[in-house]
């Protein structure tokens, strides 16, 4: 007949098991208990779950920019999946000239990106180019040019939206770098309401390359970049410095 084990002792054994630190005697004891009470496995899974949550307490750090596409590429090559491609449609036939135009813009964007990367390391350049080329070569990539106005009239850039990526990539050159306390915000307007995509600053060379989360129900044709003070709420009007060219 099996002895009655106090619940606290059972829990400690289960915790020790999940931590991988049971002595051989304890392990044997636990095996016996699990054999007689298989429902205890639920508790084991629960403790494993908690152990897996511990890294959530870490300060989160974003992986490098290019890693996402690198994993996509490698997965595609290794597993041999054809990432889903929709069947050819007449819609695409009619859009062929649009795609050609997109490629032309893509090449100019690559030039822009190259100039941005001149200040970066060679390795970063190669990786960034690979990422950008991969992004631009995807059949449904959408690219919206942006032009500077007023104090940022020399600025130009594009926003790139890629299927499979909930974030858009914003690339700009010759945008004045802002002093501390000021930021740029990318926004779109939908039914008279301003939707903020995110905020950013240009580097000392006037270059920007950031990824911003695409808001729901956005309208690409109504993009605007505003200059604002850090303290201003996202609802403020801001000072327009760039706009989308539809």
């Amino acid at each position, binding site marked *: 007949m099996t002895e009655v084990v106090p619940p606290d002792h059972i829990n400690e054994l289960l915790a020790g098991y999940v931590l991988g630190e049971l002595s051989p005697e304890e392990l044997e004891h636990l095996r016996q208990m699990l054999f007689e009470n298989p429902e205890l496995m639920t508790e084991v899974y629960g403790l494993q779950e908690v152990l897996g949550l511990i890294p959530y*307490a870490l300060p989160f750090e974003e992986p490098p920019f290019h890693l996402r596409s690198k994993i996509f590429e490698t997965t595609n090559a290794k597993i041999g999946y054809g990432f889903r491609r929709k069947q050819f449609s007449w819609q695409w036939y009619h859009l062929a000239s649009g795609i050609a135009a997109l490629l032309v813009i893509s090449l100019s964007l690559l030039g822009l990106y190259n100039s941005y990367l001149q200040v970066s390391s060679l390795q970063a350049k190669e990786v960034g180019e690979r990422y950008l080329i991969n992004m631009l070569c995807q059949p449904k990539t959408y690219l919206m040019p942006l032009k500077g106005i007023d104090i940022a009239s020399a600025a130009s850039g594009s926003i790139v939206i890629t299927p499979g990526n909930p974030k858009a990539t914003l690339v700009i050159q010759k945008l004045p770098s802002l002093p501390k306390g000021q930021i740029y915000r990318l926004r779109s307007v939908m039914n008279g309401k301003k939707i903020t995509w995110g905020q950013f600053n240009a580097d000392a060379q006037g270059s920007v390359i950031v990824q911003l989360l695409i808001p729901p129900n956005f309208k690409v044709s109504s993009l605007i970049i505003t200059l604002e003070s850090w303290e201003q709420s996202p609802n403020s009007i801001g000072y327009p410095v760039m706009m989308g060219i539809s």
Partner: protein
Amino acid sequence: MHSDVVNTNHEQRTLAQQTDAELFSLFKTGNSFALGILYDRYASLVYSLALKILTNPQEAEDLTQEIFLIFLQRNTYNPNRGSLSSFISIMTRSRAIDKLRERHTNLKFLQRWCQTMNTETSSFITPVEQASLTERSQRVRNALKQLSEDQRQVLQMAYYEGLTQSEIAQRLHVPLGTIKTRARQGLLKLRQGLQDIK
């Protein structure tokens, strides 16, 4: 083209509502959006944990890639046994600790040849954006704060440095039995504080 982009986004947002297991199944059928969403959900977790343990951005990046490829190529995740976040963080920790031990072995070897080695590495830090992730992080941090300093210390040394309880006992000059008790009770207390997180 505009409507196409909107449709694409609509599809992504629909997918974003799916569970991890559903997304994994969809990925297996060739849905690349599903892979994108899984990556966005867990890349920061994997990378941050790898960076914490390995303290080297390049190694952390390589490990992040390795973890995703293993996860996608080997069908070892069983949703009935726990969440994907736990599965993937345990796998990351385990592999990172293996690499850390391997590195220590190599380092000892190199130190026999060289008198000094500068292993300092640079890191780049950007804040995470997703609110749900932030909320979960806050919950875990709060739960860890409920532990005694001793319990937290033992769990973190075991988790991030891969030390056995005997090694921790030696390092802290505390009896092994005390370390065992601190670790077990710390984990049980953490379980109480995080019971509703899945």
